[in-house]
């Protein structure tokens, strides 16, 4: 893996306007009022989501929003982001949290088909074949104003799988890899890894250096549980971590989560449209529309600081017939190898 030049968001650097600097640029005072996702701008898009708003629902797991849902049939069928659906599921319809059951799951696309006892307004899928890079894309929630807006960044492509990610930046320590930084919300932090810990073994296999540890972790898949031996203040401790998914080098991963959390399953998709909308992981699962209000896809992952993914409408339509068959009678859709999130 190539090292990237621009690295971690970690040093504080001075960028003060030097007294001697001659002014040749128009000064614009810092302000977020004119940001792309400021309320006023999003409100301009209200008419665009009028059509899909009634079909956009909230899915909760144990009472907490984990995904949006897209209603696809009048008799209570909705699509949601499968890997976020752990716990007691409800779908909010007309302000009421109604119990939902999982009919089936297309793991390779991370889409789950849920059934709820309610009459819904299904979406009409539009044409995702005629997409221009740079065109507006709008993400609806259940409110009048869109959740967020963005543009298409990259047209349809396959997203390969990723290797496991612990979430530390490392140096060489005595007989192990020394932890220099722990990524907030990462597998490492959740496992209790601390700065200055020296990681000496993973699953009983000695990791004598930074490189050895990195190679060992790379060999693991996201979702894998690993046992980590650390030396902290001279004492040996054993920690258990569930690996997350990595987008690249550890340093890239640190920067990637600076501006907000990412979806647990954010890679290994057969086909997605990449857009620059800043979404929360729990805002995936709902419809993505173009400026004409046509549904071009379903948001499926917050994949990085610069990227969100949507499954194109035609791909969704293609898997629906199989998805509607009850799980037991259906040959398992191609399992997404090692990429399923840990349960």
């Amino acid at each position: 893996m190539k090292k990237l030049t621009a690295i971690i968001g970690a040093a504080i650097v001075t960028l003060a306007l030097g007294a001697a600097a001659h002014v040749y640029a128009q000064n614009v005072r810092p302000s977020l009022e004119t940001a792309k996702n400021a309320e006023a701008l999003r409100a301009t898009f209200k008419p665009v989501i009028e059509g899909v708003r009634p079909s956009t629902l909230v899915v909760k797991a144990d009472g907490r929003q984990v995904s949006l849902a897209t209603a696809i049939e009048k008799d209570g069928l909705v699509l949601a982001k499968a890997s976020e659906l752990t716990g007691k599921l409800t779908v909010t319809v007309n302000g009421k949290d109604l119990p939902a059951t999982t009919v089936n799951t297309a793991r390779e696309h991370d889409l789950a088909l849920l059934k709820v006892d309610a009459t819904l307004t299904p979406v009409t899928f539009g044409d995702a074949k005629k997409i221009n890079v740079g065109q507006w894309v709008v993400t609806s929630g259940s409110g009048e104003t869109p959740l967020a807006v963005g543009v298409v960044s990259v047209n349809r492509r396959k997203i390969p799988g990723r290797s496991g990610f612990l979430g530390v930046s490392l140096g060489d320590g005595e007989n192990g890899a020394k932890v220099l930084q722990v990524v907030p919300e990462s597998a490492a932090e959740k496992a209790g890894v601390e700065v200055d810990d020296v990681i000496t073994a993973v699953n009983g296999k000695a990791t004598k250096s930074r490189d050895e540890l990195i190679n060992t972790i790379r060999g693991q898949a996201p979702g894998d549980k690993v046992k980590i031996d650390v030396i902290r203040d001279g004492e040996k401790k054993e920690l258990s971590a569930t690996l997350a998914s990595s987008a690249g080098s550890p340093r890239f991963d640190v920067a990637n989560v600076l501006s907000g959390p990412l979806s647990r399953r954010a890679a290994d998709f057969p086909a997605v449209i990449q857009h620059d909308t800043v979404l929360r992981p729990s805002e995936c699962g709902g419809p993505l529309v173009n400026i004409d209000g046509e549904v071009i896809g379903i948001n499926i992952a917050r994949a990085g600081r610069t990227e969100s993914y949507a499954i194109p409408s035609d791909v969704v339509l293609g898997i629906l017939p199989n998805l509607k068959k009850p799980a037991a009678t259906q040959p398992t859709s191609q399992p997404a190898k090692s990429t399923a999130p840990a349960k």
Partner: protein
Amino acid sequence: MKKPFAAFWALSCGLTLGVAFTLTTLAQTSAPATRPTTNKAPITPANLADLRLIQQRVEDVVKKSMPATVAVMAGSGQGSGVIVSKDGWVLTAGHVTSEANRDISLILADGRRVKARTYGINLGIDSGLIKITDKGDYPFVPLGTNKDMKAGQWVVALGHPGGYRKERPPVVRLGRVLMANSRMVGTDCTLIMGDSGGPLFDLDGNLIGIHSRIGAQATVNIHVPVDTYTQTWDRLANSETWGGGMLGLAGAPKVMMGVLTEEHERGAKVVSLIDNGPAAKAGLKPGDIILKLGESAVKGPDELLGLMGRYRAGETVKLIVDREGKTEEVSVKLAARPANMR
């Protein structure tokens, strides 16, 4: 007088210093001509018609600019760049090339790999220049100017986030100008490593900035103003390396607090915090004005940085802050700045 955003959590700090570069004498080359922004698309769209107009302009900019956007493969470093002349001058960020007179390669948007050479660098402002050495006529973009930038002006960013990937063309992002001065342009075009050196365009397709660094929030993305390239073109084209201290690691403390501050008449005002960073863990909040670090008065972001240099990672420092008019004491355990930073 308020200094905007004086201290940043920045990406991309690394700059290799001190290489002699008096070897080659270069023909004087003048910078390509610049074009003003006309910006007929409305800054504040009032309705769907305005939004469609913006969309049309963005799609046009993407089509015109994509072929001139390149990946820069500079040894251990990788970034982006943009071709600005038919004979292959390429603008990038200073920290991408990191030193003058290096032989590197570029990957064009169509996948072609070409040989190139690094030229001058302004370390202070993070500008850098490259010339393609393979003979040819290259697709290029026109240089714009920062003279008439407006708050909220729409801008398009291209680049190779995460580094060059064969199956993925340069990645498009849209944003607006949120701040600008002679040293930097801030937008909400989201950037990440690998984008460094990539182009920022106005809706006429004129180049107005080069991606440089980011803050913690998705709305803090900093670009080098294009005017600095045109103003210092001769120095860059003569492979001069100058400036420094602003972005370089030399002056940056080895510890971090995880806080973005701005100038305030009484101290350093907290603008934002890194989630779960040392300052956030200590309970510091946006709006807090840092008055003292230890026993020393903090007059602003610069002083805060200077004072932090006295401490080591793991040390707990006492801050006196003004929170909504009340003076409070906060203890922050400083963390190490991650190693291997460039």
